[in-house]
């Protein structure tokens, strides 16, 4: 085996060790993630909480601001996705109604009518 071949084998082994260390032993830890990185069931529950809170405060502006933390999708898409997931995973009918109520309220919501919060 030539010297160059051995050198390349060493580089390869080092790379493998480096990748193993970086991906398995000590991977990058995202301890400060945003809600948009939550797993889909947690995202769905997050939307459900927004829907529950909306039933109390009836503040659509606040609901939209809360939904905005889940990423750049539109609030109606976020609620629709959550409703889909909830429907597929047999959420209680009461919870499905909450998703629907929030979704319907979003459709009729006019942000221009919002009174700005100081």
């Amino acid at each position, binding site marked *: 085996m030539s010297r160059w071949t051995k050198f390349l084998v*060493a580089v390869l082994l080092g790379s493998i060790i480096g990748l193993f260390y970086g991906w398995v032993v000590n991977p990058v830890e995202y301890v400060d*993630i945003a809600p948009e990185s939550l797993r*889909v069931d947690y995202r769905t529950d997050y939307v459900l*909480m927004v829907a529950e809170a909306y039933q109390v*405060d009836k503040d659509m502006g606040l609901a939209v601001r809360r939904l905005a933390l889940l990423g750049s999708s539109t609030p109606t898409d976020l609620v629709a996705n959550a409703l889909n997931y909830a429907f597929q995973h047999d959420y209680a009918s009461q919870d499905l109604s909450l998703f629907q109520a929030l979704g319907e309220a979003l459709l009729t919501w006019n942000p221009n009518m919002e009174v700005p919060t100081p």
Partner: protein
Amino acid sequence: MRADRRGSWYLLTGAILGLVVGLFYSWVVSPVKYVDAPPYALRADFKNNYRVLVAAAYLYSNDLVRAEDRLAQLRDDDPAQSLAMQAQQALAAGRPEAEVRALGLLAIALGEGFTPPASSTAHSQEAIILTPGAENTTTPPGVIGTPANTILPSSTATPTPAEGASFVVGETRLACNPAQPVPLIQVEILDAAQNPVPGLELVVTWEGGEDHFFTGLKPELGLGYADFNMTPGVVYSLHLEGGEQEVDDLSAAECQAEDGSRYWGSWRLTFIQP
């Protein structure tokens, strides 16, 4: 011969080079992506938002088990304590009252394992209590304070017993406790059945200042308990949010120990629902 004298260092060089490339690739170019992260990995401010949302959702559902499950995802050592602390921080930071109240109510519910009355919730509408329609005249036997003695409670149905106007000052006294040398305004609020009432907002004012505090945020001292640290030399007034009756002229007063030494006492006020 000359090449042999270079030894095998090139292998180590290659391995180190490969290691650096591997680490660069795994940490920078293509790091592990947490696309399915759990709530406990959220940034601290997002965790605070999450707690507020859990508390707000709890106000709707009154489902303590569900709220506990949700909070468990944040892996706080003591969820009730975290909520209570956040409620106090939110209060100090001037966050919306609804947020403070929601956090406080859930903290209380978790601390005691029961569901306190929560106003403006869809499910708490069942807990309607009629306040007496008769005019109430009270004369608090307090040592200090000149509260207005006549109140006119509403004769209509109210969603909760937490109406400030329906409570009157029942007692005001200086409590001397050497183990509690910091001057406090200690408030205990009881409903008509003598049960402590959590989640009520108290407003304390002084010249050039105002602060708000809530009952129930120290459940270990009672659900109807709240306290406020006084600064010696400052004169305070206290009333329940929405209440008509105000207790004035509250200031730090001294107590005397048996050995003659002096320490700060605390004003103990009781608000009761007639």
